[in-house]
């Protein structure tokens, strides 16, 4: 067996010197960059309530879709991951395909939102947002595109208000919250969520970010930045990197009561698939979802493992169920080059086949 590490000191020195040179030169590049913009697709606010805004996204062409699609994002992070930059935008891509796209921006909860429950979010805000879009288009039902926790919300909403949803698309959506590879779920099982919420009130965004960083501490907190040094001399790539960083750490706090319910009912008790979930006064039964369902998951998702999403098929009531496995991770499904080529066209095609 040969020495697996044939690195001589001079070579090591050169490597470190190169790294340091890139780092030093990077100062010049960083100085001129400033804060990176995102969410640049033209849009119009068509409904506002408290901190929530429903945006109508504007494409270059008039939509050809007969039924508009509302993107329902998670309460963690912001919906602008779907519109990060011009060439990495699920929203722009859908608009280009002819879809008529709306999206919900939940806003940034503060103390006034401490007592918002899932009932307030789903049977309140979301329901009224959908009503506003239905009224605008003189329709009884629209398409929902739920993402991550927003996908879980969309499933719950559709089960409770089936008459208002024509087609349902879910992306990287947890359904079975107790799969063996779900690290987040594993960590909260022994947590006293009542003590947690009673103590913290709203859950600080920074705490949420800490949890996400701790899922892969070296990769997400160190290796990523080491790799950044390689692109310090490339302003375009560096801007992309900084834009993503902005999105990652631009996180809203979580409304305390909704967080308490979500951790207890979904993560700890897995009620969504056990069938005994109730939101407000309404039971949530996935079997009530008879609309066409398109479930997209990411094969390398470290936040929502594929099995957590794929569980939907077993529990949903529809006979028109389609699944798409995207080769990538939880974030790559929106921003990677492959995602631009595959995801939006697949959604568009699926909707068109269903007359939407």
């Amino acid at each position, binding site marked *: 067996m040969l020495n697996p590490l044939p690195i001589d000191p*001079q070579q*090591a020195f050169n490597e*470190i010197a190169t*790294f340091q040179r890139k*780092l030093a030169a990077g100062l010049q590049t960083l100085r001129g960059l400033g804060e990176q913009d995102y969410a640049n697709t033209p849009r119009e606010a068509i409904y506002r309530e408290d901190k929530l805004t429903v945006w109508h996204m504007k494409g270059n062409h008039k939509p050809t879709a007969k039924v508009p699609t509302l993107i329902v994002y998670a309460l963690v992070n912001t919906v602008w991951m779907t519109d990060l930059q011009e060439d990495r935008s699920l929203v722009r891509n859908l608009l280009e395909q002819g879809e008529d796209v709306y999206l919900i921006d939940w806003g940034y909860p503060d103390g006034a939102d401490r007592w918002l429950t899932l009932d307030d979010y789903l049977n309140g805000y979301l329901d009224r947002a959908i009503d506003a879009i239905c009224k605008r288009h003189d329709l009884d039902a629209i398409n929902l595109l739920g993402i991550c926790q927003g996908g879980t919300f969309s499933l719950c909403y559709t089960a409770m208000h089936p008459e208002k949803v024509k087609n349902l698309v879910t992306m990287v959506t947890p359904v079975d919250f107790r799969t*063996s590879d779900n690290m987040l779920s594993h960590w909260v099982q022994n947590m006293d969520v009542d003590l947690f919420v009673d103590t913290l009130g709203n859950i600080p965004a920074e*705490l949420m970010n800490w949890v996400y960083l701790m899922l892969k501490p070296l990769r997400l*907190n160190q290796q990523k930045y080491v790799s950044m040094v390689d692109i310090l001399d490339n302003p375009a790539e560096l801007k992309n990197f900084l834009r993503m960083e902005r999105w990652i750490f631009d996180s809203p706090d979580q409304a305390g009561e909704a967080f308490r319910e979500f951790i207890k009912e979904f993560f700890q008790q897995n009620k969504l698939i056990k069938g005994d979930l109730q939101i407000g006064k309404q039971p949530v039964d996935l079997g009530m979802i008879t609309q066409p369902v398109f479930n997209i998951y990411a094969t390398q998702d470290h936040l929502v493992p594929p099995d957590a999403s794929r569980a939907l098929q077993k529990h949903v009531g529809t006979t028109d169920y389609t699944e798409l496995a995207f080769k990538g991770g939880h974030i790559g499904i929106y921003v990677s080059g492959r995602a631009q080529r595959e995801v939006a066209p697949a959604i568009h095609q699926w909707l068109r086949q269903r007359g939407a």
Partner: protein
Amino acid sequence: MPDQANEFMKDYQAFAQQSWETWMRYLQQQSGQPSNPFAAGFGMGAAAMPQDDLLTRSLASLKTYGNWLQQAAGAGLGQTTNPWQQPAAMQSFLAAFNQPFTQTVAGIDSASAFGLDHQWQTWLQAMQQAGMAGGMPNQMAAFGITREMQLDQQALATAMQNYAQINARYQGLLQKVNAEGIARLQQLLSQHGEPGKQVESLKALYDLWVDAMEEAYAEMALSQEFREVFGALVNAQMQVRKLQQQQTEQMCRELGIPTRSEVDSLGKRVQQLRRELKEAQARGQGETAADDSLVDTLQAEIATLKRELAASKTTAKVRPIESKAGNGNGKTVTPSQRTKATRSAAGKRK
């Protein structure tokens, strides 16, 4: 060879130090203040500027990477003899990687809202200045006018001790990850002893080390033991924070300052009122919608009657008016029935 290695280390250290200082000067020019959310007190709201936050995080990570490079380079790389075939040399090499993982995790902890240690020290200092932390032994029976305060302090001291014990268990698990990660690194390196597969750069070695550590960490993080310790750690920290809040609120009440609990209580009532208002509005809209539906029905009925009237006028030219008229739904209604329907509809509208 030893001289060459020494020269290398000296050069490297000087170079790294120079580079790091340049970056720090730049960072200080940009922000003028540290971004640790607890630096300005023990509250959670002192958020840093996004750019400052990014740079601080990035630079801290890069500094840890710099330490890693230094340790890797100083650990016997480039020896003419093959350390792989000398267990003692290999152990010495691997020992260089004992700290970087825990350093990185500790770095995330201390810069985050979860880092209680710094917060605890700040809090303790503030309470001592306020004359409210006398260092009461935990087991001493409380008495006298300050009895309740003594009990509060004892409870808090006990909670902090409990947290410290659980945190020690948590740190122990991270140390296990470190040890397991190094074993995995050794295993991974053993797969790189063939020509063409050798690890020929520090960066490649670093990436391999990250793979090994992350694998070991993932296995630990999904274990039953980690789940229990992590849950206990969160609960213990929340218990400390809760007791701190209670003591702070006690001080606030004495000073006539509104407390978080009071604000929460008000917020809860306001939210309940808002729900009731929305429900009432929705019910009101439902009634309006029912009225609208009734108006539509009546208008349709009137339109039918008009058509019938027009038709009957035409028919009258050839035959007498019939006593019955259709309602458009295949049923017939008499004029008196129509009047009744119209009246009852009008009554309902009131």
